[in-house]
């Protein structure tokens, strides 16, 4: 056993060395070093508030850091899968679990990035975003077809696959689907019938090899993202604020605020739809737990938490709501509306408190299964008869503040095509 551990450690070390060769993330510059040309604003929230300083703070100190962390974690996921796929039968289960954990870490970090979807993540019609994580789009049958095809060397390159057949969502399916039975119509796809009949371990190994290919692709996308935010490479924070992309600083602020509108997706898709509070859920039971995110991994509520915390961090400029770091709250104060900043602060604190309670009640999909659809509909910020549904109302309160007060006070436009369709 010890020999195997030693071998595994050596392989792991070798892989880490390989990933170093591919160009490991270099440590970011100390915050005090200004990564911009001489005389340019610093990203350190010192002095008087300006919208530019706010954008530099969010870009350099939040989004750049998150992108870097996601790159590191996507490489760790790559390594974990390499180790898993090459491990022998006895170690396979343990390493499979490690790969699952590595996926969870990467996934939660990615959720933080998606909470302020802007810049390198959303450029070119969100090309990188949709390649990293296309939820709720998942074509599990096509994934199975690729898994089976790889066993015959007939698989496609990941780069040509549709977004619902690649990315972190597909990895969740491959790593957490315990049924190991393909969802494909076996009459239309007879080759899957043979694959279905394989032994479970063999099927896991097949899935592992396919997962490795997906993890490699995710790491490539993570590199793009990191490069985009890296102050020594793409330096998007500089591009956003130096007048080349936007002539007016208001337009740059608008991009940031539109990024924060990702919270609408959290409200509508991640919460309202599975809770049965959205028109897209129209079945007889009036709730759609099957549409909840991360049903396979059980990460749904943690994903919501990650998104809320990331929203809060970007909005207030730092994790601590009372910090001096420049965020939209400072912009509201400068615009003469401290009450709007305070209102948002109260709403976010309230949401955080309630989130902890909901987290203690179990998985997202389980809570939806157990609740009554009528009680859910009757829940409100005051009447918290179904805590999860009341939490949805807490999020709704924040999106309402964002769409009404904040846009109006700062004279900004709502993002086109995203008016929020559950209000």
């Amino acid at each position: 056993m010890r020999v195997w551990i030693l071998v595994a450690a050596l392989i792991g070390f070798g892989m880490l060395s390989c990933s170093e060769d591919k160009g490991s993330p270099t440590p970011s510059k100390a915050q005090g070093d200004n990564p911009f040309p001489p005389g340019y604003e610093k990203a350190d929230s010192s002095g008087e508030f300006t919208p530019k300083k706010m954008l530099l703070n969010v870009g350099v100190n939040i989004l750049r850091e998150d992108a870097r962390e996601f790159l590191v974690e996507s490489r760790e996921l790559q390594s974990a899968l390499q180790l898993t796929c090459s491990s022998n039968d006895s170690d396979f289960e343990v390493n499979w679990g490690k790969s699952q954990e590595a996926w969870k870490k990467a996934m939660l970090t990615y959720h933080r990035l998606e909470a302020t979807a802007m810049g390198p993540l959303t450029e070119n019609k969100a090309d990188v975003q949709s390649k990293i994580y296309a939820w709720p789009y998942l074509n599990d049958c096509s994934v199975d077809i690729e898994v089976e095809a790889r066993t015959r060397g007939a698989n496609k390159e990941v780069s040509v696959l549709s977004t619902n057949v690649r990315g972190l969502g597909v990895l969740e399916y491959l790593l957490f689907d315990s049924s190991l039975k393909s969802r494909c119509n076996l009459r239309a796809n007879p080759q899957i019938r043979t694959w279905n009949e394989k032994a479970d371990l063999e099927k896991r190994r097949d899935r592992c090899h396919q997962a490795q290919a997906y993890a490699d692709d995710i790491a490539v996308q993570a590199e793009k993202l990191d490069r985009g935010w890296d102050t020594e490479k793409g330096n998007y924070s500089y591009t956003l604020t130096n007048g080349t992309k936007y002539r007016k600083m208001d337009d740059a602020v608008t991009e940031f605020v539109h990024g924060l509108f990702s919270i609408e997706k959290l409200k509508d898709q991640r919460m309202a739809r599975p809770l049965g509070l959205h028109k897209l859920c129209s079945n007889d039971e009036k709730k759609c737990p099957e549409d909840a995110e991360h049903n396979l991994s059980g990460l749904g509520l943690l994903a919501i938490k990650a998104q809320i915390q990331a929203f809060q961090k970007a909005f207030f400029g730092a994790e601590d709501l009372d910090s001096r770091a420049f965020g939209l709250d400072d912009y509201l104060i400068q615009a003469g509306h401290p009450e709007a900043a305070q209102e948002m602060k109260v709403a976010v604190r309230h949401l955080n408190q309630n989130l902890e309670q909901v987290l203690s009640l179990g998985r997202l999909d389980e809570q939806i299964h157990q609740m009554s659809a009528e009680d859910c509909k009757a829940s409100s910020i005051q009447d918290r008869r179904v805590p999860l549904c009341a939490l949805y109302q807490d999020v709704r309160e924040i999106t309402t503040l964002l769409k009404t007060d904040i846009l109006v006070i700062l004279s900004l436009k709502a993002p086109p095509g995203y008016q929020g369709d559950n209000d």
Partner: protein
Amino acid sequence: MNVSMYVAGLSISFLMLTSALAQTEATTALETIRVTGMQTEELSQPTAPKRISKEALEEAHVTDVGRALRQAPGVYVRDEEGQGLRPNIGLRGTNPDRSKKVVILLDEILIGPAPYSAPAAYYTPSVNLSEQLEIYKGFSALMYGPNSVGGMVNYISRPIPAEKTSSVDVSGGSYGSTNLKLLSGGKTSWGGYLLEGSHLSSAGFKKLDGGGDTGFMRQDLAGRFQWNLPDVDGRLQYVELRLGLGHEDSDETYLGLTEADFAANPYRRYKASALDHMKWDHQSAVVEYNRQLGTSGLWKMSLYRHNFHRDWNRFDRFGNTNISVKSVLLDPVGNDALYVDVLRGEQDSSAVGGSLGHIVLAGNDRSFVSQGLQSILMADSEFWGLSHQFKFIARLHQDQIDRNHTLDTYEMVSGQMQAVNLNEPYQLNQEWAFAKTLALQDDLRWGDWVFTLMGRGEFIDFRFRDKMAGTERSRSDAFFVPGAGALYQVSGNVSVKLAVNRAATATGLDAGGSERREESLNKEVGIKYLNDERTAEADLVLFENDYDNITGTCTASNSCQPGNLDQQLNGGGAKIQGIEARLGYSFRALKSWWPVQLNATLLRARFDNDFNSSNGEWGYGDVVSGDPLPYIPEVQYSLILGHEAGKFRQSLNILYQGSMADQSVEVGRRSIPGYTVVDWNALYNWSSTWQFFGKVENVLNRNYLVAFRPLGARPGKPQTAMIGFKASF
């Protein structure tokens, strides 16, 4: 074969046919076409329309009004389905979307389904039952409303023949196209009558993924009955009853293609449009009293009512309302590509977020009523030493639209659409308008000068009733648009004209309280030349329409976001400047007549203010001064090469339409490239009974993009040939 070889081959065939037919006997010779447009009196008439003649329309067997209209300068048409079923006509820089900025008349009576409360012209009169078209632009359209900033198109129906005549006109050709026209009528002792029937159909030139119908069928019936009344002081008077019935059944869709799919096969149709179907019925009745006044005066009183009902079930959007179908089709990258796969039937909806990937069809059931009483008085008089020609129009008009919109949701499963939820109520409302219109024109003649003064006043009440929400709103609008012009007849062959007028388009109740009229100041100068023999003509007009406020309507056909649907939005100032020119020359050579006509339109249509647009028509985002108005070609040329020799007549029509912008907003703006289309038609008058004809549309069989609207890339009509005969007895 390259284009030049094609053109050379075509020209040689054209000439060979010419010389052969020039030898034929001319016992049943056709009436000679001198120059196709101008009449001598137009030189002295400041508000004379441009005409699409009987030869260019009826005898050329045109079935798509757009193909005929583009022979006139200043008119451009955005093709939609390639068959001319719902022409999008624009005049002098007005947006052609659904012809809603153009007044459509049939024999001087408003014929749009609801011109005040819902001006989008989903119905246009049958070209098969029309003999000519009149196009009034700018100043000359001032007398008619409601939306006459750009101008109007007046369909002239076939008159009762002087002698009893019956005819059968049958043709058929490519893509299972058939066109049948029946006519019987003539003068009688009590007056006269004319009965006409028309059936036009095609199996369609588009191919639906997985098979299915893409064609159409349109049928029209018309009756015209005239009763002569006893003459009063030797002046004629009669009553006429005109009845019309129309029906269309077409498998038409809003859904176009991605650019890549268009490049591979422009005539493809996605699976998601398989259930799309338009059906409409139209009934029309006009009772008209006509009375001759003085030597050239006329009084005409018309009572009219038109009913129109349409039901268009068509692909509208996806279950995910945050997905813009337009954006998905124009730029199918990332997750958007998945939605295109659903449209093609290549991915199941379940793989695209379940209900997010559902396909939603709109069931747009709309009933329209348009009715009124119109009086037109034309009279001559002399006072203050001046000769006056008056035209006075008074009209009481009421129209309404009742919308009963539902949604049908389907799931794409293994390339088939499976119903999920049908007939979900969506919109149930009524828009209603009552308008009183008074218009007066006075042409004062003084020597070689004609001074024109005119004005139109509109007093309109609008009402909107939301039957689902149980709410009602109403508002009134009143405006007066004056105009003045001067025409100087330099000689018997040349006249020059100068005119200026205010123009307005009424705004109903679709702007959520911020209704503002569309208003502009129109200026034009022109010069006309016509030689004594009417074998040479020239017409040049320079105009400028300076909008204080240009309005646009956010509609599904211009990819409106659901929240803004049917909203009228203000675009502020815009300026449209243009040159319209026509040169016509007809000469005799090789024992034949050769009428040649060149029409040119140069347009510069730009916003002259900065604003943020939330209107699909202009695009979403910032519009800055200098941004183009969409779907207005900067240049358009048409060259018509005619030839007639005794019993034979043929015409080669070459149209070049310059590039157009798909939207005003620069971000995401696409250009529709310019294209050339060549059509040919010929007619052989075998005897007084038999006539044979043929036509080829898009002779060069060019694939060309006409629009990215309503949703995605759409092609023009491919090469289509038709042959037929007409028997008259």
